[in-house]
């Protein structure tokens, strides 16, 4: 009760401070002082502080199962374990927006104290733009989705949280993803401020690169956690479903990845400045539209969120105001700053980066069209369609080939201009080596189609080139090597995983067995127990191979009581070579269970390679921070 009140009033106080910043900083902007007024720091701190208090108020209400709070009532239940009570705080619409706000206010405060070597006017302008976003979110929260709505009479029991969302990976997935999204808001405000102040320079590029890397790392990590959750919890045996909600997090990632590369060009060569600004704007706009698409209920997907049209309209108007506002600033203030004519050669690092940027934009547009097209079609013609994986696979996979080739060649080129002579024996050797390896593998697994063959070759090529560079170049560019190596590994593991996966679906009852390849799967027994908030049915399966080695798999069915939902927990045995995946489902009114058994090679390498990609980003970030 008390926590609820405190939370609500400190949210209002935070809103008050966020408005107060505007006149104070405008005053400071216009005076002749070279430094930012201390007042601004303290107001910004208070803004952050009150949002933190409010957030903890909400967490406390969840922990205490205070059902006089509508958000808690709708999303929690007394029988839920403490960990999921806490994670339930941001597992719902209102709480997740409060988290957005928390990260927004935190990041702008960090920005203020960490950007002291930048010009004052630029910093204040960034703060002002960021404040526009923060105030927008405050209004949204207070007006349409107040997390502290009061209920009377006080209900005795809450409506529970979707049990599918009771998973550790998913509990930390939203905060991590939001750190990435919100980081892009800083990039957005600061690039607009830099445009207005004509501050786009190598100094600015160096400074904003840290923020770009931080957002990129969090976004990548967040997407990976979401995918891990989908694999382990949804029990469909895949890790990426091209579900609209997944796509929505992938789109800003494409943009941000392009930005990570093109900020390098700006830093080294002062080129592509307009492109950098456009990417900065686009990244944040895509993050915002992600929030819009997910939260407004305009999409239907496995993720169910609140469906309040009023909320949708608010975000929509807010989003498009920001778009118009940033476009206007870009077109009015932006001037290409390279008066001198810079020659650009075909064979140089910057052109290869630009090429890969265009490929990333192509991937982005494929995903964007696949996600948004159904909405447009429904509005314009009342036809309902959904876009499935084949669409994305057909359009994306072939273009991965040149993408991979540019990724392997690009880092070996010089800035400005490379001689063709430089393409030397090492590169040819790596190519021959990867050709050999691909041929050997293809002999073993059989012909897999032309595009897959070339893709395997290209991925191996990148694989060996990065290994070679890592050791021969004396660790000069190790962060880039790590990420690119990780990416080649990712493509290879996804490819082999999808080519070599095999599965069998059958109906079984206790005591029966079936054979699959060289293995026999025996359904030994079931055991059902009452747990705190669900009933669990565990099936015991033994898998024997030819040599009579056996392992046991224990898939579980959970029948949650509040609300009543049946989920199947797959049991997965992971080794470095393959995952054995077994999931069972209830067949209605029958003693039979529907059993699905899959062998998925190299599954764990998908996560390992993503971690490598992230480590590359981290290394680059630390290098950057260490330089200072």
């Amino acid at each position, binding site marked *: 009760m008390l926590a609820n009140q405190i939370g609500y009033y400190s949210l209002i106080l935070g809103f008050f401070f966020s408005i107060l910043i505007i006149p104070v900083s405008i005053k400071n902007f216009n005076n002749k002082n070279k430094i930012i007024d201390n007042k601004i720091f303290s107001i910004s701190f208070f803004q952050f502080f009150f949002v933190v208090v409010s957030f903890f108020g909400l967490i406390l209400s969840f922990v205490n199962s205070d059902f006089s709070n509508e958000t808690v009532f709708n999303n929690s239940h007394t029988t839920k374990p403490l960990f999921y009570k806490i994670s339930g705080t941001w597992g719902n619409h209102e709480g997740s927006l409060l988290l957005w706000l928390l990260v927004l206010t935190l990041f702008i405060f960090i920005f203020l104290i960490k950007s002291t070597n930048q010009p004052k006017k630029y910093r204040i302008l960034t703060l002002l733009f960021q404040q526009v976003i923060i105030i927008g979110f405050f209004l949204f929260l207070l007006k349409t989705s107040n997390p502290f709505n009061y209920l009377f009479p006080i*209900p005795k029991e809450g409506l529970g949280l979707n049990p599918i969302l009771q998973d550790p990976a998913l509990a930390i997935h939203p905060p991590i993803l939001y750190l990435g999204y919100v980081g892009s808001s800083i990039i957005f405000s600061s690039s607009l401020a830099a445009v207005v102040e004509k501050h786009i320079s190598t100094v600015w590029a160096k400074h904003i690169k840290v923020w770009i890397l931080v957002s990129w790392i969090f976004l990548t990590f967040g997407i990976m956690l979401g995918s891990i959750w989908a694999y382990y919890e949804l029990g469909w045996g895949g890790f990426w479903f091209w579900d609209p909600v997944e796509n929505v997090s992938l789109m800003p990632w494409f943009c941000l990845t392009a930005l990570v590369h093109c900020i390098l060009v700006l830093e080294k060569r002062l080129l592509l400045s307009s492109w950098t600004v456009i990417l900065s704007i686009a990244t944040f706009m895509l993050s915002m539209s992600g929030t819009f698409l997910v939260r407004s209920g305009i999409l239907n997907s496995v993720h169910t969120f609140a469906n309040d049209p009023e909320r949708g309209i608010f975000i929509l108007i807010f989003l498009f105001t920001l778009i*118009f506002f940033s476009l206007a600033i870009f077109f009015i203030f932006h001037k290409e700053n390279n008066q001198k004519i810079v020659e650009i050669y075909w064979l140089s690092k910057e052109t290869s980066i630009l090429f890969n940027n265009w490929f990333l934009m192509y991937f982005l547009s494929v995903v964007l069209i696949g996600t948004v097209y159904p909405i447009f079609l429904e509005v314009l013609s009342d036809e309902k369609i959904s876009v499935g994986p084949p669409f994305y696979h057909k359009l994306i996979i072939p273009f991965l080939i040149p993408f991979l080739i540019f990724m392997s060649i690009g880092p070996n080129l010089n800035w400005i201009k490379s001689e063709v002579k430089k393409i030397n024996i090492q590169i040819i050797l790596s190519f021959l080596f990867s050709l050999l390896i691909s041929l050997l593998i293809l002999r073993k697994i059989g012909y897999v189609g032309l595009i897959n063959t070339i893709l395997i070759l290209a991925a191996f090529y990148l694989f060996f080139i990065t290994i070679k560079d890592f050791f021969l170049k004396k660790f000069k560019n190790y962060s880039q090597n790590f990420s690119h190596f990780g990416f080649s590994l990712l493509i290879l593991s996804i490819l082999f995983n999808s080519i070599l996966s095999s599965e069998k679906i059958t109906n079984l009852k206790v005591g029966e067995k079936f054979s699959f390849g060289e293995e026999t799967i025996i359904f030994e027994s079931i055991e059902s127990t009452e747990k705190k908030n669900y009933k669990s049915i565990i099936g015991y399966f033994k898998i024997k191979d030819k040599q009579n080695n056996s392992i046991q798999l224990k898939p579980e069915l959970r029948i949650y009581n509040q609300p009543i939902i049946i989920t199947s927990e797959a049991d997965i045995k992971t080794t470095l070579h393959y995952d054995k995946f077994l999931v069972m489902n209830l067949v209605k009114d029958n003693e039979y269970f529907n059993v699905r058994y899959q062998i998925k090679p190299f599954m764990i390498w998908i996560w390992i390679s993503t971690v490598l990609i992230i480590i590359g980003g981290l290394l680059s970030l630390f290098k950057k921070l260490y330089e200072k």
Partner: protein
Amino acid sequence: MKNKKKRAKDSKKKKNKIIFSALLLFFVFCFIVLFKGLNNSNIYVPKEKTEKILKSFTSKDLYSENKISSDQIFVDSEFYAINIWSSWCVPCREEHPKLMELSKNKSLKLIGLNYKDNPKNAKRFINEFGNPYFMIITDKNGIISIDLGAIGVPETFIINKDKKIIKRFLGSLNEKSLKEINLILK
């Protein structure tokens, strides 16, 4: 020479203006489409592949506190509606006028299933807002609702004389759902 530069600058300005207006138009178009899209309802109702037959159950009458079995309830009407409600449930309050409207329809027996509620509060709720129900039975521990396949409160099931669930409405009933019910009853 200078003239040339100026002309180049002018043409660039013009080009920028065209790009800007084109983008503006494009985004206005997107805005309108998305705005319209918002008004399409997307509330997801799980599809029942086969029409489920109601399990028999026993419960208590809210007022008389007599035990009553489902066979005694579903006897003589063409259609029944089971409405799951509770006095602590906020959307139920919004829904109540719609239920009052529905109760005027004589070809349907409206049965209230009082979910996890305190009988005192439930009676107070009915006194305050009126009683649309033909009969109110209690579901103190929520088992009947679970057997029905209910997900939340309020929820309404339309049942025909063969005790088959032919339609279900998640959340509070609105104008649209009343129309749908009337179509079924005809």
